[in-house]
Structures are given as structure tokens and as C-alpha cells.
């Protein structure tokens, strides 16, 4: 493996990599685990069926973190994650994993890389002809370990994922959640430095999803394993990812610390993914009557966002008192994003200038983040 010295230029602007430093640190401490540099991927030959799946993607995955990539189906997530272990090859640009450029590897080099990068799948992809034990043993057999060494490794892995008593079961005898646990144990068998998760919870019910996410979080914390996951579920990112990138039509439209991206969502894709996940979607009858400009006697709809300091203050009661007008609450939720409280409340009050002026003064005073959604009659 060829270590590369990271320069200030190679840290993407607006990324979440550590700020560049004048004193060089060891590569392991500074370089991201995965870096995409201007990566483009096209499918098909020239002509009508040529399709651009990824278009100039710059992205870094921090070492030891859980990074989520979220986007709708067809946004290019699957292609993106498959570039990391060379299941797909970039048309242009560089994909660098732990200092090694994936595109420059021979078939043998790729196989060695893949033994250091575990992967789990939406449909688990377990061999139906093998027991849970033998499924976990498969990557070790492939790596050429002998029977005894394999036995010594598989049992603790099954214990780690909570399936110590299911070693002799076949996949068809396991539930979806148990199958994914076998998939996780299998991905961890070769002690990888990076775990790729391809929609790993999308085929599971909400409760099972939470237990699998908790397992991934524990593995990340206990083994210090870097996790890169792709998903279309905000819930997944919100629950475990410390960093997030939002992908839309082959481009990364937003990236950063999960909490920052979620609370300061700028791109339309991020917002629409968010409002569904955070329970702040307005009822249909309000949305369809929303006007961009007020007329006399209308009420203004404002989204109040509470996080950081404001999340803990009793501001709603004070707002009503300050305004001296009737305020009604249309939607709201309190969530935890990447371990921090985040509240969102949609309120309506008269769009009378006297009232809105008092409101704006109150927001400025208290540091509340607000967003005007529109006006209703």
C-alpha cells in the first residue's frame, strides 16, 4: 500500500475533514478513509442508452465515523458505494480508499482490498445452502484460512451479533433481522477497516431496523470501524450517522455534520426528505391553500426550529404572550438527530404588521431559527 501525503488542497471545501494543518501528521490520523475526487460514472456506450449515474462527485468519508449517503432511488447511491470496493469502475476521477487508488488496482490488488472492506446488502445475499456458521466462514475460506482458524473466528462473531445459538440454522430458518445479523458477522469476518452498507435496513420493519442500527453503532464504537452507508430513509441517517451527504441525480448537493445539514437544510431534496422524516409535514388541506403573498386578514405560517440552546427553553408560551394575538400550532415534533435534540413547530398567527413585527423582535432576541412557509386565509 502506498501512503499518500494529504495536502490542504485535497481536503474538499465545505467537507467535514479535519482542517488542514501546516505540520504534517501521520497519514492514518489525517487522511480520510475514503475520498472521491471528481468522480464521474457513465453506463452504456455512446448514444441514447448512455446514462450518467454520477457526475463530478467530491466526497470524503472520515476515519472511524459513520457516514450516511442519502438520496432517492436512482440518485446514484448504489453506484457510489460500489466504486469503493471496485465492484464498479469510475469513468473518470479518483476513488481513494485508505490511501490507495481503487481504479489503479489489478484484479489481485482489488481482491486484497475487498478483504479489508466488508459489505452488507439490502437482501442480505446469504447462501441458502450454508448454515449461519458456514455463511460467516465463507470469506475466511476465500481468504484461505484453515478449518481450525475459521472455527476460532466464527463463533465470537456470531456471539457479537447475538446469534451464538443460531450457528447451525439455515437462512430460511431465520428472520430478516437475524439474516442481516449473519450478513454483518460475515462482513466483519476478515476484520475489515471499512464497512459498506447498501440499504441494509430497507427490507426490514421499523423495529428490526432500529436493532440493526444499534448493532452497527455498537460495532462502530467498539471496533472503531469506519462505516459508509447508503439509504433512502432519513430515519437511518438521523439515528446513527455523524456525517451525511445528500445525493440527487448523480451529484452531491449537501454534505457535512448530520446535525448541521439537517438543521440548516438548503437544498430542496434535503428539505423534502427531511420534512417527511421529521413529522413536520403540513396537513394536505393547509399545503394546498398556502399562498406566497398575504392579503388582508390572512394568517402567516412560520416554522420555528429549536436546537442547541433554544431546544431547552420554554419559548412557545412566551411567544404567545409576546404576540398578544392568538397563535395556533399546526404541526410539530421533537427529534434527536445524531444525538442532539431538534424541535420543529409550525405555528400560525395573524399576518398583521403589528403582530409580525413583535414576532420578529422576539425571534431575534431569543435566537430562534424561523422560516416563513406562506399565508392562509
Amino acid at each position, binding site marked *: 500500500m502506498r501512503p499518500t501525503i494529504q495536502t490542504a488542497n485535497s481536503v474538499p471545501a465545505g467537507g467535514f475533514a479535519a482542517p488542514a494543518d501546516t505540520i504534517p501528521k501521520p497519514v492514518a490520523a489525517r487522511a480520510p478513509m475514503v475520498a472521491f475526487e471528481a468522480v464521474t460514472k457513465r453506463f452504456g456506450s455512446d448514444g441514447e442508452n448512455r446514462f450518467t449515474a454520477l457526475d463530478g462527485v467530491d466526497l470524503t468519508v472520515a476515519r472511524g465515523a459513520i457516514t450516511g449517503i442519502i438520496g432517492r432511488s436512482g440518485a446514484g447511491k448504489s453506484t457510489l458505494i460500489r466504486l469503493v*470496493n471496485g*465492484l464498479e469502475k469510475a469513468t473518470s476521477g479518483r476513488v481513494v480508499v485508505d490511501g490507495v487508488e481503487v481504479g489503479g488496482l489489478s484484479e489481485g490488488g482489488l*481482491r486484497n482490498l475487498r*478483504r479489508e472492506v466488508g459489505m452488507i446488502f439490502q437482501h442480505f445475499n446469504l*447462501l441458502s*445452502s450454508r448454515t449461519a456458521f458456514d455463511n460467516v466462514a*465463507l470469506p475466511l475460506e476465500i481468504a484461505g484460512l484453515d478449518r481450525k482458524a475459521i472455527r476460532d473466528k466464527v463463533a465470537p462473531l456470531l456471539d457479537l451479533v447475538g446469534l451464538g445459538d443460531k450457528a447451525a440454522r439455515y437462512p430460511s430458518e431465520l428472520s430478516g433481522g437475524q439474516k442481516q445479523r449473519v450478513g454483518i458477522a460475515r462482513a466483519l469476518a*476478515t476484520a475489515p477497516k471499512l464497512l459498506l452498507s447498501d440499504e441494509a435496513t430497507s427490507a426490514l420493519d421499523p423495529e428490526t431496523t432500529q436493532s440493526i442500527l444499534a448493532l452497527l453503532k455498537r460495532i462502530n464504537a467498539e471496533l472503531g470501524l469506519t462505516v459508509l452507508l447508503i439509504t433512502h430513509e432519513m430515519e437511518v441517517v438521523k439515528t446513527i450517522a455523524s456525517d451525511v451527504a445528500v445525493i440527487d441525480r448523480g451529484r452531491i448537493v449537501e454534505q457535512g455534520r448530520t446535525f448541521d445539514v439537517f438543521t440548516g437544510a438548503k437544498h430542496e431534496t434535503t428539505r423534502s426528505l427531511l420534512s417527511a422524516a421529521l413529522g413536520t409535514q403540513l396537513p394536505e388541506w393547509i399545503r394546498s391553500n398556502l399562498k406566497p403573498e398575504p392579503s388582508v386578514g390572512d394568517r402567516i405560517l412560520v416554522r420555528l426550529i429549536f436546537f442547541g440552546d433554544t431546544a431547552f427553553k420554554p419559548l412557545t408560551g412566551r411567544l404567545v404572550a409576546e404576540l398578544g394575538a392568538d397563535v395556533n400550532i399546526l404541526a410539530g415534533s421533537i427529534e434527536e438527530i445524531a444525538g442532539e435534540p431538534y424541535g420543529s413547530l409550525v405555528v400560525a398567527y395573524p399576518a398583521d404588521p403589528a403582530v409580525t413585527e413583535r414576532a420578529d423582535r422576539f425571534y431575534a432576541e431569543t435566537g430562534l431559527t424561523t422560516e416563513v412557509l406562506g399565508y392562509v386565509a
Partner: protein
Amino acid sequence: MSLDMLIGLLTKSLGQTLQMVAIAGLLGSLIGLPIGIFLATSGKGELFPAPVTNRVLGVIVNATRSTPFIILVVAIIPFTRLVTGTSIGTNAAIVPLTIATIPFFARLVEAAIREIDKGLIEAARAMGATPLQIVFKVLLAEARPGITLAFTMTIVSLIGYSAMVGAVGGGGLGDLGIRYGYQRFMPEVMLAVVVVLIVLVQLVQSAGDALARRFDKRNRKT
């Protein structure tokens, strides 16, 4: 015809049939298996991409399969003589039976392998498996129930084919039925032959089904 004579004839013919079917079945499947694996894995973008070879092999397989068996028997007589030193008798009959088995079994193996979820191949690639490891540890293991059924079907077809090799003096149950039952108007011989064949096919099919079920772990219930 006396019962003793009938039993004597039946035993001898059954022995010949079993000999032809067993040897042609094993040899043909042994050769057909790698061809089937190759057909299933050599398409564009697959494990051993060789689209041209794949297509050529496909055409040869189709040509062999569409040649009526009785014509194949006669057409390859020079080859048969080269291999066995003779063009008549049970051993000589094994050659065309084997030749016919190869493409038949190969296509069935190909179908059994193509049934396997592509996700399993991707998972194995993601583990760093070589193409050969994928064939042996994933494809053959997962297709074992399907290949078992393919082998069963091949043996049953061979029992049918073997009835035609009477044309080159191959003997066997089919030959007995035609010569005694049909040409000499002995319906009791024909009936006996048919009954023995039905029982034989039933036994082979049941054994194959049972084995395939044992290999198949896809529908196990707790």
C-alpha cells in the same frame, strides 16, 4: 413364450439398458457439467467473459440437441468405430448416447446456475473471491438441488433414448419391445417391457427428487 424365457430376456435387456444409461449418463454429465457452467458464466460482463466462445458453443449445443437422436446414432458411426473399435453392440451404443447427453445436461446445468440470485455473486466478489472460488463455493453449492434434478431428468431421457439404439444392435429394453413385442406380435412382451420401463423411470425420478429435496435448504421451516 414361456415365463422363464420372458424373464430371461427381460433381465438381459434390463442389464443392457442399465449399463448404457449408467455409463452414458455419468460420462455425459461429467463432460456436460463444465460446459454448462461455462455457458452460464461466459456471457458479456459475467465471471469469465467470452461472449464469442459462448455463442459458438451455444450454437453447437443447439445443433446437437436438434439432431434427431436416431440420425445422430447413424451419423457418428465413424467416430463410434474410432472409440470402441466397432459400430454395433451395447458398448458402441454408449458413444452416441454420451454425445447426446452432453448438450442436454449442459443446458439444464446452465439453467440451474442462472437461477441463482446475482446478489450472491456480487457478495462473493465483494469478499474478494476469485472467479473459480465463486464457481465452486457459490454457484455449484447453491445450484446443487437444481443440478440434481437436471441429472435426474437426464437419466430419464437417456432411458428413452436407449430404446432407439436397437438400430445399431445396442440391445436393451426398448430393443426387446420392438423386436419381440412389435415385429413378432407378442403383446405380453411389449407390456412387460413397458411396465419395467415405467417402474425404472419412477424409481429414478423419486430418488432424484428425494436427493434434491435434501440438498435444498431454501424452504426449511423452524
